[in-house]
């Protein structure tokens, strides 16, 4: 992990329908720094703005106040220069492309020559252990396999940064735990910086270096918990006392957020 700052948000705010009667403050005064090589989770109850924050970073929506830099650029520059890869909650694969065709799409859009993007896409399929399914169409794969294809697609342009918006949220528990392990393995082998949105405490603790806990109405950063678990994080970590301690710490912080919520309401 280096000291290079990849994401730098400063007093960031986002108000939906600012001029209208039903204006909603989705993000309020967000200050957040993510360094190169970090795995940072954004955790919080629904409505806390964690997805909005990620979408602002990815330039899928724009902030209404404050400043944010992604790779030292504004988010739009970062997006158009393809600095990041993104994985959504749903795989979002294109039905008409084979698995290989889906994975090579980002490179195709960037104008990379066919032979080069083919071999690169094959490498990525190997990384997510789906080499045997290159010629299949998405509908022939299970949900978990489709999401692995989506991860391969996000990684195929070798981005230094990966945005993941509850990527495992739609999967069953078994698939989830398996893919969490896969994700750590991929993170370890690609040295990519990952910003990961989730509403699962255990998932955030198992995966991250740092868990950013957010509170709703207005969405803001409540507190940050550093996770110090032994590397490599294997399945055994899930049963280790340190894991439980950190989960408890995060859960306590989250409960404080929710209690504050109720006090206001």
């Amino acid at each position: 992990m280096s000291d290079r700052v990849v994401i730098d948000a400063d007093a960031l705010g986002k108000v939906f329908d600012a001029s209208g009667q039903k204006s909603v403050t989705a993000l309020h005064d967000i200050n957040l720094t993510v360094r190169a090589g970090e795995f940072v989770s954004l955790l919080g109850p629904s409505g806390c703005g964690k997805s909005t924050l990620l979408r602002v970073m990815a330039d899928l929506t724009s902030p209404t106040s404050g400043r944010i830099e992604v790779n030292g650029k504004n988010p739009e520059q970062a997006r158009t220069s393809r600095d990041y890869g993104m994985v959504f909650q749903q795989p979002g694969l294109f039905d008409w492309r084979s698995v290989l065709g889906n994975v090579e799409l980002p490179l195709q859009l960037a104008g990379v020559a066919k032979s080069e993007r083919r071999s690169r896409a094959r490498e990525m399929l190997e990384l997510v252990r789906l080499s045997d399914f290159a010629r299949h169409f998405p509908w022939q794969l299970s949900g978990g396999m489709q999401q692995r294809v989506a991860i391969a697609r996000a990684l195929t342009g070798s981005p230094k940064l990966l945005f993941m918006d509850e990527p495992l949220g739609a999967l069953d528990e078994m698939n989830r735990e398996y893919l969490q392990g896969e994700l750590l393995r991929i993170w370890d082998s690609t040295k990519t910086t990952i910003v990961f949105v989730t509403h699962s405490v255990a998932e955030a603790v198992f995966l991250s270096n740092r868990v950013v806990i957010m509170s709703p109405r207005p969405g803001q950063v409540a507190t940050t918990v550093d996770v110090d678990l032994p590397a490599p994080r294997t399945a055994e970590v899930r049963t280790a006392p340190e894991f439980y301690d950190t989960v408890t710490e995060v859960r306590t912080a989250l409960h404080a957020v929710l209690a504050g919520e109720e006090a206001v309401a």
Partner: protein
Amino acid sequence: MTATTDTGPRRAPAVAPWLVRHVVPAVAAPVVILALWQALVRGFNVESFVLPAPTEIGAALAANLTTILAASVVTVQAVLLGLLTGVAGGVTVALLLARFRSISAPVLTVAVIVNCAPIVALAPIFNNWLGTASIASKAGVAAIMVFFPVLVNTARGLLDISPLHLEVMASMAATPRQVALRARLPHALPYLFNGVKLGATLSVIGVIVSEYFGGLANALGVYIAQMAALPRYAEAWAGILVAAALGLALFGAINLLERLLMPWHATVRSTAD
């Protein structure tokens, strides 16, 4: 290398059961019907004005094959020209609507309403405008009948793309042109084919009705009507048979094209039942 926790891929079923389940019944049905038809006509001595026996129709077809085929060529040319023109026009306007999305809703609303009008009624007007004997007047009516369903379906396919797919494209920094070419257009293909299938039927109706309002005497629709009026029913039925075969061939060709252009889609449908 497959993950143990993953459920395996869903594979297409083997070919043999598919043949037995889908092809055999579809082939058996007409054989049974033809046999029954022949038996009933012969068994009950049905008069030929009610229904000629399949064998009589076959004989009439063999005797008049050249006349019928010559008439078919005239009709088929107009049908194909009308279909192609209508599809080209419909797709072009649909693409424009996808490009200028603010006007798409009112234009589609109007297109849906106009499509409710019996456009065949334009046939005599087109005959007056473009010449009774010209292929343009026949194909023109067919083209307009094809245009609307193709426009409405294709536009819907281009516009109905999911927000998720648009965001995926945005996250890859796709240009508007790439979004249109790589996301909207392939997504709209199945819709386009639905429109073309509807259009194929309408194109045939448009051309034959247009022929009815005057034109070349050696067209298929005119031949059938004349034989029915004479009355030479076996010949009329032979004409109907050829018309049916042509309609089927057109439909089959479109289905084949669909399978070729959309392998992902055809495979989905062959297993769904």
